[in-house]
């Protein structure tokens, strides 16, 4: 049991990054009412952006954060403006297939442009030896990613709860017709949600790129985990996503350490199904 504090620390560090990925997803769902099935592919795109900023221009991932955030935000806005917006008028089928098509498209682009090879970034200032803290070893990349994610979530929370535009965004999420009557342009808010969701995902991707392998199918696990977190935390809830992400991070590490590590995602997926069936409104969600 002496390994338990270490396992818990790893779980919380992972949870913090997952929380930021999930917040990007929950913002888009909460405001636009469409699930971005390509969310994991957004993470993958951000990781490639960080990789090429590093390999071509020698930019450290921490300095590349504005670039990756901007690129993923641009992908988000472009997706919304091109295909998602017309599909919103359609049936549920259209709404699912439009972002599922985006998943296929982005994955194909990555395979054509970058090939199936695994890539990784080395020599980042965020890398290096672990920091010892209360007898627990905190690996620097993971620690930096967790801290960066917490800052990112803080910024998003501040924007959403303390600015006029943020209030307008939340008003649209609650009732788009009422918001429209108050003079808020829902269409612009939808675009904004895709931009902010994309930027949050781009930030998380740059931090993940420091210590995760980068390849065209890297997104699926992050995408699925983000859905799971969002569904568990209650759709549209930032606080719920944070709590659920910590739970998922803990579960993945505890199950991976004490049980067979090959099955660590399996437990998360099973937990997701159990939670959805048992509490469809999410762990913290109210009806």
């Amino acid at each position: 049991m002496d390994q338990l504090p270490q396992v818990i620390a790893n779980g919380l560090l992972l949870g913090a990054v997952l929380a930021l990925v999930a917040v990007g997803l929950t913002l888009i769902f909460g405001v636009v009412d469409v699930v971005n099935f390509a969310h994991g592919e957004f993470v993958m795109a951000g990781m490639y952006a960080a990789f090429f900023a590093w390999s071509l221009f020698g930019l450290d991932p921490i300095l590349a954060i504005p670039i990756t955030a901007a690129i993923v935000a641009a992908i988000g806005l472009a997706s919304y403006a091109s295909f998602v917006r017309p599909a919103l008028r359609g049936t549920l089928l259209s709404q699912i297939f439009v972002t599922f098509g985006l998943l296929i498209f982005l994955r194909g682009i990555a395979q054509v442009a970058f090939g199936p090879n695994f890539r990784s970034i080395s020599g980042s200032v965020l890398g290096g030896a672990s920091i010892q803290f209360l007898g627990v070893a905190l690996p620097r990349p993971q620690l930096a990613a967790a801290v960066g994610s917490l800052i990112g979530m803080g910024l998003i929370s501040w924007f959403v709860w303390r600015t006029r535009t943020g209030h307008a965004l939340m008003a649209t999420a609650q009732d788009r017709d009422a918001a429209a009557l108050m003079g808020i342009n829902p269409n612009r808010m939808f675009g904004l949600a895709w931009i902010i969701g994309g930027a949050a995902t781009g930030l998380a991707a740059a931090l993940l790129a420091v210590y995760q392998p980068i390849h065209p199918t890297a997104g699926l696990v992050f995408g699925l985990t983000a859905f799971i977190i969002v569904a568990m935390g209650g759709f549209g809830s930032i606080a719920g996503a944070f709590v659920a992400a910590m739970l998922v991070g803990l579960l993945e590490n505890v199950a991976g350490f004490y049980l067979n590590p090959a099955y660590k995602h399996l437990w998360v997926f099973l937990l997701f199904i159990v939670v959805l069936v048992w509490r469809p409104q999410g762990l913290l969600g109210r009806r």
Partner: protein
Amino acid sequence: MTSQISTSGAGRGDTGPAPTARLASAQLDTGGTRRELLPWAIFLASFGMFPVLFTSTYAHNLGVLVCLTAIMALGWNLLGGFAGQISLGHALFFGIGAYAAAVGGDILEVNPWLSIIAGMVLAVILSSLIGIPIFRLRGHYFAITTIAIAEIALIVFLNWSWVGGATGLSIPLQPDSLVNLQWSGRQRWEYYYLTLGIVIAILIATRFILRSRIGYYLIAIREDQAAAAALGVPVTRYKQFAFGFSAAAVALAGGLFAQYVLFVDPRSTFGLIISVNIIIAAVIGGVRSMWGPIIGAVVFYTLTEFTRLQFGGTGNALNLVFYGLLVMAIAAFEPNGLVGLGARFRRLMLHWRSR
């Protein structure tokens, strides 16, 4: 109802025309009995003559793949297109069918037909067990959960050493015969006509299901589940029926595929790409039509082979780019796919002629 989630598609019933009006307007796309003859004639003539007109191994192989994809897309479409339950995880049943054939051939050494039928039965049992929890979910949640279940199966089979783990299983060679379901000839006559026969059988089954009360029930569930339930449609039972039908069809295709290539491994059977292929075929053709999946399967392989011949190895990835765009465009502008586009064109022609 505990499963009602107001943020998703479940709340959409609040807007638009009254539910009963929409139920009444939801019509079936099988046309009149006489109007049905023309598509059947075109289908039978073209599919029946294909291997006679194009006799290369390459063409025959392509024909088999088109038929297998058509079987899966037809099965998927009853659940996804007609009952409106969008599964993104049907690779699960493909994998079950493929592994049943491989386990039967390589480990248990039983007749392939037995293995394939066992795989279908297993798929139906699995679908009804999975259906109990997930049919309480609607819309997006259902779709996400189906992906998660297929991924669970992928993880299990990657780590299950009895079925070969990540390396998979090979089916041993047997003497050529229908009983052994193996033919070693350079051409693929036997396999082509066998799979074509199954396509025809599933088409006929689909046609009768859609023309029966069940078809109207399924469409009522898609259009407005609450209204359908209020009118006395046993919603869960018919969702389970469509799920079981689609699971059996996809498992059958999986078993035939394993028997055709004599090899299975987890990633090429349980992987997301299989679910993606099924959906591309169904969506391109048109999900609200019986013939959509057939047209979709043909177009899918024609385009796939075209890009592969033009661009070689990168063609596979290039296909994903192209299909991704196509699926997005269809979702955004013509949800009924090529069949919908055709209907639009026909209306335009009629309008133009009547002037």
